[in-house]
């Protein structure tokens, strides 16, 4: 039996429809991709007039800003990298699967918290508080890792019953109250220690002995706030890389007698190293470009100073504050666009590098017989 056929005259129409639609989609797709490309072209094009300014051009105005950007990013990375990588290692390899299913999305949600909110809390609450309790803050920063180690030691000393009750695989949760208690303890102890060691006022001592000024909104605050914002992006990517390490590698190491930590340190980390590295790079890219947190928490003073207690001004903050007022075509306008170009190129390069590294890593996992 012959299947019912459409009338012949309809056939070309369908084909024409198809041709037209394919053409439209192609045009639209290429158009969108070109529009994205246009960002780079525009930035370069608007930077070119800088060459006509000749001697009047001074890139020196940008150098404290570039320094501020680097300082802010460095502070944020110093705060975020250990925490994010530690969290990634723990949740990829030690945490119970059920808990991991809950905690990972929650930490990734952290990334969604808008920068304005973080910046506002940092600039208006954290900064004045830290100014009054500098010694306490520094003490807490030192005390937290020690107290975590202390928790570990106590756990090994504790009886088997307690260990069963509070297993390592759930430590990410039950350590929370412990850390809260330890922070309270540190806050209670800090004034006593400050009195004994620094003559009652750490800030005055810093000023008198080392000549360090203290600005309310400074690199320390920016580091903490932006670190908070960067933690989830580093964590998420590093965790993916670590969790995807082929299971047979880890099992092999453990079968040969390695402890879980040794397997992680000697096998998983070297294998997933590129992925972890690319996670850190992407975090750095984010820290360099973050605007609102720096605007709100840094004091916006363009300084060349390495002190963590002084303010800074970053490229992105400068763009956000000055560009709306700059007259189009003027030198400030073109300089700021040059700053934007620098940010664009930097983040684009860093991200491309990270992406290429991750693709290599994926291929390596496939070669090693991973399940993905």
């Amino acid at each position: 039996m012959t299947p019912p056929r459409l009338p012949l005259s309809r056939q070309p129409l369908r084909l024409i429809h198809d041709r037209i639609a394919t053409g439209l989609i192609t045009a639209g797709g290429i158009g969108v991709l070109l529009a994205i490309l246009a960002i780079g072209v525009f930035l370069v094009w608007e930077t070119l007039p800088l060459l006509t300014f000749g001697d009047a051009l001074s890139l020196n105005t940008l150098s404290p800003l570039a320094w501020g950007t680097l300082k802010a990013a460095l502070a944020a990375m110093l705060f975020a990298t250990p925490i994010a990588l530690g969290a990634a290692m723990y949740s990829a390899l030690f945490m119970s699967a059920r808990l991991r299913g809950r905690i990972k999305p929650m930490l990734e949600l952290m990334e969604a918290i808008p920068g304005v909110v973080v910046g506002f809390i940092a600039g208006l609450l954290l900064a004045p508080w830290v100014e009054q309790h500098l010694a306490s803050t520094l003490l807490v920063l030192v005390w937290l890792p020690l107290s975590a180690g202390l928790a570990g030691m106590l756990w090994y000393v504790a009886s088997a019953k307690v260990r069963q009750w509070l297993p390592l695989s759930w430590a990410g949760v039950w350590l929370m109250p412990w850390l809260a208690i330890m922070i309270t303890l540190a806050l209670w102890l800090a004034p006593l220690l400050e009195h004994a060691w620094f003559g009652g006022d750490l800030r005055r001592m810093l000023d008198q002995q080392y000549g360090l000024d203290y600005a309310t909104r400074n690199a320390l605050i920016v580091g903490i706030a932006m670190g908070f914002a960067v933690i989830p992006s580093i964590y998420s990517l590093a965790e993916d890389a670590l969790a995807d390490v082929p299971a047979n590698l880890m099992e092999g190491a453990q079968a040969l007698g390695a402890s879980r930590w040794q397997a992680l340190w000697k096998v998983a980390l070297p294998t997933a190293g590129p992925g972890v590295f690319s996670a850190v790079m992407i975090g750095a890219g984010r820290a360099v470009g973050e605007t609102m947190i720096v605007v709100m928490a840094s004091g916006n003073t363009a300084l060349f100073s390495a002190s963590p207690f002084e303010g800074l001004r970053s490229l992105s903050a400068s763009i956000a504050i000055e560009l709306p007022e700059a007259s189009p075509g003027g030198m400030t306008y073109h300089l700021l666009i040059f700053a934007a170009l620098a940010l664009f190129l930097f983040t684009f390069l860093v991200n491309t590098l990270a992406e290429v590294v991750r693709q290599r890593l994926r291929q390596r996992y496939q070669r090693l017989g991973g399940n993905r």
Partner: protein
Amino acid sequence: MRWLPRPPRLTAMGSLLWPWLCAASVALSLLMLATLLTLLAARGLGHFWPATLEEVTLRSGETLIGQAVREAPLPNAAGTERLYFTGNRDIDGNSWRWVALDDIATVAVPNDLIRLERAPWGDFIGRLETVESDGQRFEGDAAWAFVAQAMALPESQRPVAQLWLTAADGHRVTQPLAGVMRFQAPNAMSWHQKVSAWSGRIWQFLSEGPRAANTGGGVWPAIFGTVMMVILMSVIVTPFGVLAAIYLNEIAHQNRLTRLVRIGVRNLAGVPSIVYGVFGLGVFVYGIGGSIDSWFFEDALPSPTFGTGGLLWASLTLALLTLPVVIVATEEGLARIPDAQREGAVALGATRLEMLTRVVLPMATPAMLTGVILAVARAAGEVAPLMLVGVAKLAPQMPVDDEFPYLHLERKFMHLGYHLFDTAFHGEDVQAAIPLVFATALLLVLIVLVLNLTAIFLRHYLRRQRGNEC
């Protein structure tokens, strides 16, 4: 087999303790997140709770009435001081007062203390003496009953009346009833009344415009502006993002170039948002907007119509910013559809268009939806690019009204995130505005988190429903 663990050596000690440090960093991250959210919720929602008013008598014999806000150590001496919100800016020009705890003789909470929210001058805190209306004078309980009755009516039907009020220092002021927004005697309120007053104020916060230099009123124009901008943005970004994803995944030949393009698109998601803002300002506002002005709105020049930041340019900029998010999400959805589905459709005689619209796209809808929701969540929280392309501190006109053409794309608009930034950092009385800033921040975080959670659950649900293949 060894039953007792060997006492660990010092090097082994390290490898035993490291996992705990890692666990602690998870705990610390969670702790920070929880602290942030609790802080926002407590300070943001707590502000609307009718706070107890205290009548404080100092050792010097002076009395003051106010709401205790917080305590801090004295700057140059031992002891603590307490900050009171005393209102009455019209009487002594100052609505805050620091009092050292040692100076306080007695603290009382009498039931007849009232708090008025007034149109000019902000809050009044003190006592109600008499009410004068139509030549009649009410005193004591009658005055209270009269005011309570009047405030229950809608604003247009309230009788004309004068309130005679006394401040803590005995200063007497008159206040026309028409300027009173709210009349409360928080100390006399029952728990139930407080809850209803609290929810009423939250509703007021969501539904009214800002008043008194952002220290009172609400954020309705900012909510409206944010929503408008986000809707326009998703209308722009969805078709283009989906189109680009279909092109990349279904039509373009898969070779080195497409792989490069794909990496490029993915990386654009990591480019700082401020760069998009610069692009929007240079191309949309000065470039396209300037040209539109010189062609169509020449009579209005030199004051720009489209050549300045506005709703349209802001939406376009954010659409560009979120384009990679939509493209990546849609592409992931498309890549997950097995080729057998496509081949089946083509084998049954469908053209490519029919295959796409009837088979592939319906299967990829959840992925597209997820992408759009994620894009909306990102756009709602983004402030930096908006500072360049069209957000306003206080927009006199809403972008939508009853004037032709109803939707005014060239107008500036208010945005929750920028409103927060501006109130907190450029306000006149930041101290008084901070509670409302907290409430705004809470609202913004809630919107973004709810959108993200929706995306997560949608993805999860649809994946489970359709099996793992799509």
